[in-house]
């Protein structure tokens, strides 16, 4: 069935390629990448290394860093994985603002020098890599899971489904966009000094589960955040929402949750009805 056509199916022919190459070369330019270097275990001092990296229209800061790592200095420490802004690994301070390296195109940054530093508010492990343990612990402290006596399905033969209208989903969906990249945590001024403050990411998750109508732990969720270093240490600086790459808007969730804490907002959440599904046999 399959026609016997030229196997070189991947990049057509070479001549064609070369012509294109030269065309691209003409709009290719070079940027200067300044990378923060420090290994706390081997001395306190830090410095910046400078690299010249060729870039194209679609080159991201992550691409540029990986080019530097692969061909100029293998020892740059950097954390990355998905390269499509969905894993949250590559947060760093790029030209002064916390951003995802894979989500920041070189062409979006006006300057010709790109400075990469580790995320502030996270302890530095090495170079651009920071320690997220505190951050994850803060998330965990919010009990980010559904509290509901029926959360675990016990009887595999009688499956139930919670009835949730698209509207119900919309109440919490935005907060569940969070990829735990920590950008908000590093932009927030309260986190800058308060180590026990959960930070915008964790508080947004507190709101996410609070607003989910499958969850019935409404009061205990409020109690978790209503502490000395809890939700009230947010002063609506809004920087979390400014830097969030996923549109989570943690500032919104936090303020809404506070409305419930001072009982200014009415809580009209009704627990979702759970309906049994009939199942046929194979």
């Amino acid at each position, binding site marked *: 069935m399959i026609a016997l056509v030229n196997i070189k199916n991947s990049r057509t022919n070479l001549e064609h390629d070369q012509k294109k190459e030269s065309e691209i070369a003409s709009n290719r330019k070079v940027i200067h990448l300044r990378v923060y270097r420090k290994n706390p275990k081997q001395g306190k001092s830090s410095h910046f290394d400078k690299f010249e990296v060729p870039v194209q229209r679609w080159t991201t800061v992550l691409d540029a860093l990986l080019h530097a790592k692969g061909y100029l200095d293998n020892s740059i420490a950097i954390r990355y994985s998905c390269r499509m802004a969905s894993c949250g690994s590559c947060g760093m301070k790029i030209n002064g603002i916390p951003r995802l390296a894979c989500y920041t195109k070189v062409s979006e940054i006006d300057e010709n020098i790109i400075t990469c530093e580790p995320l502030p508010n996270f302890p530095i492990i090495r170079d651009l890599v920071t320690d997220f343990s505190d951050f994850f612990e803060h998330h965990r402290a919010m009990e980010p899971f559904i509290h509901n006596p029926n959360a675990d399905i016990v009887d595999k033969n009688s499956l139930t489904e919670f009835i949730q209208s698209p509207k119900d989903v919309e109440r919490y969906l935005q907060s569940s966009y969070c990829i735990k990249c920590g950008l908000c945590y590093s932009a927030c001024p*309260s986190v800058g*000094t*308060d*180590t*026990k*403050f959960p930070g915008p990411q964790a508080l947004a998750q507190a709101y996410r589960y609070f607003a989910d109508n499958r969850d019935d732990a409404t009061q205990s969720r409020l109690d978790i955040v*209503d*502490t*000395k*270093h*809890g939700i*009230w*240490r947010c002063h609506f600086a809004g920087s979390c929402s400014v830097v969030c790459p996923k549109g989570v808007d943690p500032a919104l969730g936090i303020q809404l949750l*506070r409305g419930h*804490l*001072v009982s200014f907002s009415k809580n009209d959440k009704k627990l979702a009805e759970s309906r049994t599904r009939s199942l046929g046999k194979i």
Partner: protein
Amino acid sequence: MLMLKESQIMKIHYISGVAALFVVAVHILIRLPVVTGMPFSMSLEYENVVANYQNIAYAVLLESMLVLIAIHGFNGLRIILLEFRQNIVWENGVTVFTLVAMIALIAYGTRTILIANGLG
């Protein structure tokens, strides 16, 4: 230590803030030439001020202003200091310090009002 929930403290913070806004407004209006009919500097003369203090309504106003702003302001300070360092000694120290400072200031201000009332 004070057994208030943080949300209750913050409610007090907000309410005292807004209430303070009203009393301060009155306090300042009374000083304004449009209201008093005299130039600002004149309204500050000793006799005028003492007369003000001896007006009971005004003294009550002053006292509530003193209390409201002290509560609001020192709680604000407490918030800032709490965020500054986190360990038990510091945290308890901050609470005690701001409470004591608040009470001291209120007491000191109240003394002025009371004595001014007794001034001939």
